[in-house]
């Protein structure tokens, strides 16, 4: 077995392809989100057709991003899948629990400002990132 040459890892190359595909879909989603957000404000005020087109494009590309993310996750090896699963469980749980408590604080007027969905997205994103790093550190 010693004389076997190192073969290129199919797993590594397919993982790289999946990661690049996910990066491209995420980038496209971000760009279309920016267009749908700032277009009606700065470029085409009062043109509802363009706004609907921009939002629809963003939604469709978002579905593409979800599919790319699913493929990326399925392509990971079992340890990285476990790390991702734990991170997603944590971010979903914290997002749900803290998000609903945050919403209650708003609807009961305990806090003066409105509960913004962007705050929830930021919280979930940061939780997910922290959980992935913690998982990677645990198995290092």
């Amino acid at each position, binding site marked *: *077995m*010693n004389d076997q040459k*190192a*073969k*290129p*890892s*199919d*797993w*590594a190359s397919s*993982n790289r392809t999946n990661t690049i595909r996910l990066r491209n879909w995420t980038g496209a989603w971000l760009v279309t989100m920016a267009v749908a957000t700032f277009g009606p404000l700065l470029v085409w005020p009062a043109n509802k057709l363009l706004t609907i087109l921009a939002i629809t494009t963003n939604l469709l590309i978002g579905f593409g991003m979800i599919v790319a993310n699913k493929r990326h996750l399925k392509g990971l*090896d*079992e*340890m*990285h899948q*476990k790390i991702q699963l734990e991170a997603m469980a944590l971010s979903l749980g914290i997002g749900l629990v803290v998000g609903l408590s945050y919403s209650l604080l708003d609807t009961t007027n305990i806090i003066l400002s409105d509960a913004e969905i962007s705050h929830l997205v930021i919280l979930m994103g940061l939780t997910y990132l922290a959980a992935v790093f913690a998982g*990677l550190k*645990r*198995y*290092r």
Partner: protein
Amino acid sequence: MKNRLKVLRAERDWTQARLAAELGVSRQTINAIEKGKFDPSLPLAFKAARLFELSIEDIFQDEAVS
């Protein structure tokens, strides 16, 4: 779960990256398995057994039993 992956790899003068490529996982996963921080699935354990031409029990041992 204890395992002999590191010994078997060293006997063949393989790097972790080489073994990872052979088994279709990442180098980090091989490192975690060798250190006993991550227990591989049964399919991955079978794959390792086939690669080293050994039985699963020759590579992986249950610490509760041994």
